[in-house]
């Protein structure tokens, strides 16, 4: 895939993530349709979440997220190591998206959180197959405070100096902002979400 090659050539550590309003809108809409009304049998923090793929472009350390779609995702509420993400669905979907906009490629994935979970690192590892440096964005669909509802991360591998332990991966936060092209400038009142 030549897309990945060009990314590798110009691969700089990610410094900024720009999320477009269209992405936020579709994610919130997805969440409302799919996971909002799941009964709170478990603790509030662990309600059912929506997971999807982020599409966009990456240029000189800045990732521009312009499009997204949800993917079928299941996880076991009690055992976080049991999860299933339909990657065949993702591959078919992406190939269709590519036909309409060849510039957009996979830049990472999103979750409605609202917080990071234990299996996020494993899911992130899956996305390394599609993009060398994926980003993970948590979209807060029910924000309580003012501020942008996105939190972006990418993962970093830390090697122990004495080399005895297996390398561990960590999520590192990256500043994100909401920006739009002129045509996308619709008002997004966060308190109405």
């Amino acid at each position, binding site marked *: 895939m030549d897309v990945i090659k060009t990314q590798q050539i110009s691969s700089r550590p990610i410094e900024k993530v720009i999320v477009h309003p269209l992405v936020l809108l579709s994610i919130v809409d997805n969440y409302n349709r799919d996971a909002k009304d799941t009964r709170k049998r478990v603790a509030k923090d662990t309600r059912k979440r929506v997971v999807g793929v982020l599409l966009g472009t990456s240029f000189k350390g800045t990732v521009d997220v312009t499009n997204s779609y949800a993917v*079928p995702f*299941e996880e*076991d509420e009690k*055992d976080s190591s*049991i999860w*299933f993400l339909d990657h*065949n669905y993702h591959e078919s979907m992406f190939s269709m998206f590519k036909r309409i906009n060849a510039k957009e490629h996979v830049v990472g994935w999103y979750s409605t959180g609202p917080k990071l979970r234990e299996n996020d690192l494993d899911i992130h590892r899956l996305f390394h197959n599609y993009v060398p440096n994926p980003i993970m964005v948590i979209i807060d669909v029910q924000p309580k405070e003012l501020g942008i509802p996105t939190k972006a991360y990418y993962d970093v591998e830390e090697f122990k100096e004495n080399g005895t332990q297996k390398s561990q991966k960590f999520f590192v936060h990256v500043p994100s902002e909401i920006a739009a092209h002129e045509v996308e400038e619709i008002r997004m009142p966060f308190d109405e979400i």
Partner: protein
Amino acid sequence: MVLEATMICVDNSEWMRNGDYSPSRFQVQADAVSLVCGAKTQSNPENTVGILTMAGKGVRVLATPTSDLGKILSCMHGLEMGGEMNLAAGILIAQLALKHRQNKNQQQRIIVFAGSPIKHEKKALEIIGKKLKKNSVALDIVDFGEEEDGKPEKLEALLASVNNNDASHIVHVPPSQNALSDVLISTPVFTGDGEGGSGFAATTAAAAAGGVSDFDFGVDPNIDPELALALRVSMEEERARQEAAAKKAAEEASSQEKGEDAQPQSDSQNATSTATEKVSDPMDEDDLLKEALALSMNIPGSDSSAGDAQMSEASNDDQELALALQMSMQDGSKESSAPSDVSKVLGDQSFMSSIISSLPGVDPNDPNVKNLLASLPGQSESQQKKDEDEKPKDEK
């Protein structure tokens, strides 16, 4: 032809390197997997199959349920062995994958290849089993490879907790010369699908193996169940007939000598057409007897009432004849014994000629009667020849 979505859990742990199944456990497992995939997709075009690996770095879904056989087979290619199998996680993730099947009408099924030791506790497996049962997922377990104390018990416990109306099965395959796929063909893992799927599986296995088949008559009941059934029934009928023949041995001694000469020709065709003959024989012999009786009475179109009248008349003359006629009049329920007795009656030429001569209005020299007589012994003599063959064997 059940509409099913299947997830196959493949064991690609270090234990699969072992060569006690030739060429290696992993290879035979891969063959078995491709066979199962083929069988499932053939039995119903809408069936979907998915694959996941349980060992390696962790449980990984290689293919979500799809009906594209090529994709599934390519997933199996280039798999690496390593790590330890995580049975519980594998089954649970398979269940999640099935939850997301596109066609909700499909039945859910998981097939697990358990080749390495199971580190889970029996209790944990039973809980998983109950969860599967709650979600109406059927489970097939193939227990092969590593034989560990308690492994069969654990797997049986798992099966018991999942099993709902016998939809789930377990197969224990010890190391042997036969390939895993050959052994699996004869099990409910395949035959649960129905005829079509197992037909595919059987033909490919027959092509591959080409050697000893474990089935009677050299016919795989899965390929052609009707033929296998017919052959089995004819064997049983033959045995019953031989027992009756042993009783009437002395009486038929004279007719057998005559029978032997005309024998060899009909013998070969009899061997091959036994199956088809069996079905038609009772009918033919009954009909022929009725025809003979009708002919003797010059009544066109034999009538059972005429036959009965004939019987009562004949009984006065000849007790043996009456016995034979009675037996021939019996229908379906005693089909196996009737042809044997009727054939005995017809085969005994001296007996036949005595019947014909005793019946009024029949001229033994009549060409029609002669033709009839000639055709009848042809069938029954072949059976007598077989009786003769069996008797020397019995005497030995």
